């Protein structure tokens, strides 16, 4: 699904990503962890080009992001993204949040878009909130709506950028549950998170990053029980 080779992203002399290569296979759940400032979010955001890379090559669903002929819109239609700060559209109702891009981008009819939206609200358990404005919802509810909004585009890949970091502890569970359901349904997912329990349970592969590089990569069992790299050991000892 994603093939990234030797990507570099620099802010001045600081290298946020330093020749990073990684793949995400169809149906795979990849969890990316690491200390803050290690380049996790930058890496994730380069996949749908919210962050433009300076060097290297990224191919998403067969489309080369560097190729000037590639229409980035087509890539973004296939790649959903969930943000730490939800970023729901505050001037639109929950239902309108879910239908806007379907109508404007996917060119679906209003009725078709609303049916799809209601299906997804059912899935995230928020049918009753369809007419509410995001400002009236709790953080956990807002993030579930944000996930549903991305899913409404029927993406092939979902990116999660610290989806539970802005939530009160008691709301983290409901969001993770929705993500676990999604994983069970076979969605291809790349998740930046500090939730180690989620990583252990859901991930097919864990990527550990530090200082703009991928330091360690492997199955959750390997990573959590026998990490080979010193930096990874230190990080785990601090966080667990």
């Amino acid at each position, binding site marked *: 699904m994603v093939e990234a080779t030797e990507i570099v992203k620099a802010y001045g002399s600081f290298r946020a990503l330093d020749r990073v290569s990684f793949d995400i296979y169809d149906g795979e759940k990849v969890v990316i962890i690491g200390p803050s400032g290690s380049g996790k979010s930058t890496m994730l955001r380069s996949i*749908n080009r*919210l962050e433009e890379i300076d060097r290297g090559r990224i191919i998403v669903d067969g489309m080369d992001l560097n190729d000037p002929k590639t229409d980035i*819109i*087509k890539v*973004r*239609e296939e*790649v*959903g*993204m969930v*943000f730490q*700060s*939800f*970023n*729901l*559209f*505050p*001037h639109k109702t929950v239902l309108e949040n879910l239908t*806007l*891009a379907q109508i*404007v*981008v*996917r060119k679906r009819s209003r009725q078709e878009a609303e049916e799809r939206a209601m299906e997804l609200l059912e899935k995230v358990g928020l049918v009753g909130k369809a007419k509410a*404005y*995001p*400002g009236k919802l709790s*953080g956990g509810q*807002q993030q579930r709506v*944000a996930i549903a*909004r*991305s899913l409404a*585009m029927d993406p092939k890949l979902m990116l999660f950028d610290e989806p539970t970091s*802005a939530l009160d502890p008691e709301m983290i569970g409901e969001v993770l549950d929705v993500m676990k359901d999604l994983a069970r349904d076979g969605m291809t997912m790349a998740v930046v998170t500090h939730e180690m329990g989620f990583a252990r349970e859901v991930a097919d592969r864990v990527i550990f990053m530090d200082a703009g590089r991928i330091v360690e990569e492997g199955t959750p069992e390997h990573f959590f029980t026998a990490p080979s790299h010193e930096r990874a050991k230190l990080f785990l000892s601090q966080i667990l």
Partner: protein
Amino acid sequence: MTIEAKNQIIDVGDGAAIPRKSDRGLFTAWRIAFFGAIGTLIYLVQTQPDPYLNILKFVPDGILVTFQVTLGAILLAIVIGLITGLGRISKNRFFNGAASLYVEIIRGIPLLVQIFYIYYALGRFVQVPAILSAIIAMAVCYGAYMGEVVRAGIQSIAKGQTEAALSLGMNSRQTMFHVILPQSVKVILPPVGNEFIALLKDSSLVSIIAVADLLRRGREFASESFTYFETYTVIALIYLIITLFFSKIIGVMEERVSVNK
């Protein structure tokens, strides 16, 4: 926690003050000024119908012209401001450069000079009625200020909104019109109201190019009857009543918008 653009403070120069919520109570500054002005006007007319009643009968045509100029100019200025504001944040170099140059030039020339310039410059090529060139001059000037209001309004919307829209596959135009602009309206509205009132007052400048607005009508009456003090007292009171009236309306509108969120 959503990051929203609430209570954005945008500096747009010297518009009239909008009454604050805290200014409640019977004797607010607004009430004293507004009803005081009306009361004074009524008192003067009743006690000395000559010349005050005659003045009051003479100037309504001018009030109408003042409204025409103000309304025409503000509508045109909003359109110009929208285009300029979008230009100022555009990545297109030409569009951005043109908008910035326009703002810099206009802000550096006094409005009165602009009015003269457009009136006489246009007059050299096409025969334009004075009122039309007055409206154009005011709109060109206020469009530049309005452009900065629009730019600030757009930039006050959190970056995450744009990112969310883009990540859903929207292009930059769809993002602007479906996501960013509707949210900026709330931020832009109060300063636009201030600009409206400032424009209303500045519209008195057009009296200099033979537009028969409120001030011009007053001057005509005064120079015929030699009642300068009396006439300009009435003119000042009328301007005061009109601007205070609109500042109240704008204040109420602003409150409505901030409640309806």
